[in-house]
């Protein structure tokens, strides 16, 4: 397990330092900047969890809102009965089970079925939750009253983001990560060398789903009043896809590059032009597909590659006369 290269130790240290710095934010501001930072950290956690699965497999998952909503609901239903930390674990378990079921139904066959299935999943779960609620209880929504403030939520989300990063890092070094690299490059080859491709994908999807459900559970106290349309808002799924793809999914930190600017832009648009959010989201999708198919990190890497290529022949030319 151990045996980190100096490079890896450096990135781990840098990551820990950045998280520690980010954790200081609530000491300086508890108004607008904290509120938008909660959004940023929330989407950072969601996007990295999303990229954990969709990055290596290239399967566009739209199930984020479903997992997220299940997380919020498990807190909403259990807050009066069970301690909060336990609820987070329950949320994770529910997310993982849900992901396991979806994965078992779709991930054994081609990827299109998976996309289609997740496309309507949030809507399906919303219908089921609404139906159960109207059938077995009188109230439509749930109240979540806790002592938690915005700062607490911020810190927990930050810790979660850290945990997602650490998990992705560990997975990349494990057998599962290696299997995913092979699958991502060529699935036929992966099957021929004896990798159980469906099983690896399902496990990875379960891990990703569990993290997203925890993110939902952590954010639940922020809503105070939870009802199906807000908890299972399909927009969450689409925003996560845009942000992650905007940043690029090849690098672990790629999604972050998309999350920070896009959260700020969306915040600006939804407060100033609320009727135009859909159009902006649509244009963002089109822009990503046509202009930056590999995300900003892809652009940077291309630029870097071109840079080294250009400087390398120059170095050779310099050596010649000597």
């Amino acid at each position, binding site marked *: 397990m151990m045996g980190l290269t100096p490079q890896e130790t450096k990135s781990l240290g840098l990551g820990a330092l950045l998280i520690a710095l980010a954790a200081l934010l609530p000491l300086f501001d508890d108004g607008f900047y904290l509120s938008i930072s909660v959004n940023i950290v929330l989407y950072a956690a969601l996007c990295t969890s999303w990229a954990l699965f969709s990055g290596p497999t290239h399967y566009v998952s739209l199930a984020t809102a479903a997992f997220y909503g299940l997380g919020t609901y498990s807190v909403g239903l259990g807050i009066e009965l069970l301690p909060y930390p336990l609820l987070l674990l329950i949320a994770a378990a529910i997310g993982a089970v849900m992901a396991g079921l979806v994965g078992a139904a*779709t991930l054994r*066959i081609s990827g299109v079925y998976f996309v289609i299935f997740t496309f*309507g999943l949030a*809507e399906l779960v919303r*219908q*089921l939750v609404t*139906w159960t609620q109207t059938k077995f209880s009188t109230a439509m929504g749930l109240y979540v009253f806790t002592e938690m403030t915005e700062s607490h939520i911020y810190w927990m989300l930050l810790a979660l983001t850290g945990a997602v990063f650490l998990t992705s890092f560990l997975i990349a070094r494990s057998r599962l990560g290696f299997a995913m690299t092979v699958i991502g490059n060529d699935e036929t080859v992966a099957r021929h060398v004896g990798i159980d491709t469906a099983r690896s994908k399902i496990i990875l999807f379960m891990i990703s789903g569990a993290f997203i459900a925890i993110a939902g559970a952590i954010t639940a106290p922020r809503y105070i009043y939870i009802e199906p349309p807000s908890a299972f808002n399909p927009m969450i799924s689409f925003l996560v896809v845009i942000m992650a793809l905007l940043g690029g999914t090849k690098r672990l930190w790629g999604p972050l590059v998309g999350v920070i600017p896009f959260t700020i832009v969306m915040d600006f648009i939804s407060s100033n032009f609320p009727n135009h959010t859909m159009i902006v989201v*649509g*244009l963002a999708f089109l822009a990503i597909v046509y202009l930056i*198919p590999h995300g900003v990190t892809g652009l940077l890497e291309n630029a870097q590659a071109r840079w080294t290529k250009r400087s390398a022949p120059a170095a050779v030319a310099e050596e010649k006369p000597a």
Partner: protein
Amino acid sequence: MNIIVTGILLSGTYALVALGLTLQYGVARIMNLGNGETLVAACFVAFWLYTGFSINPLVGLLIIAPAAFAINWGIYAVALQPLVKRAKNRGQLEVDSILATFGLLFLMQGLMILFFGGEYRSYTFLAERFEIFGNAYGLNRVVAFVAAAIIAAGLWFFLYRTRQGTALRAVAVDPTSANLVAIDVARTAAFAFALGGALTACGGALLSTFYTFNASMGVVFTMKALIIVIMGGVGDVRGAVLAALILGISETFVASVIDPGLTLAATYGLFILVLLFRPQGIFGRAPT
């Protein structure tokens, strides 16, 4: 009996929408997730023509279908053809077209909300009693079903009895080989995409005569159409019609016997069954 007839009447419009999608995915190889938005747009145009100019929705089809054909051709030529050219393989095109049609989905939905607002709308057209086997049904539903059946029959005739249609089916089977027998694949794909859009729009216009619609319901219809297409087998006309019947009946059954709020759950139930037992579709052959 009542449930079966209502289900069959509903399935007529479903079949049209699904046929549109199956042409777009099966022939043009574009998984159009903005398909439901085409449907909703047609609903609004039919509504607008009827309330603003008192044009009968059936006559409106003569305006809506060619317009949808032209617009979809334009969308394909401007937005999707570059992706087809860029894609190195089928998988790449699939991911790209899914993301691009998400863009179209939101763009269209956003524009419709901007122009028509987010409220539910409907209009009264042929809301009279019509008796089938002693039960009364809305005449508008019956008329919509008959119109859908006529259009679907026309499509079948086109696909199986004309040269253009045969070319379309050839591209669906194998674009590379189709190219070898002098079929202009790019043109045929564009034509199929446009025709698919026109069919979906017809479905939408007919739907609007008996259904309450709003700007953001497109996704649910896309989902239903996708499931019908998968259940019937991609690019398969007979399969799509049969699958639409199954979906229409089971949805009506769930809505009237269990709860109207669970129609999507019924759709998903069918989807899961298909995925588990016949992922290649009812008439599809197992992939080799």
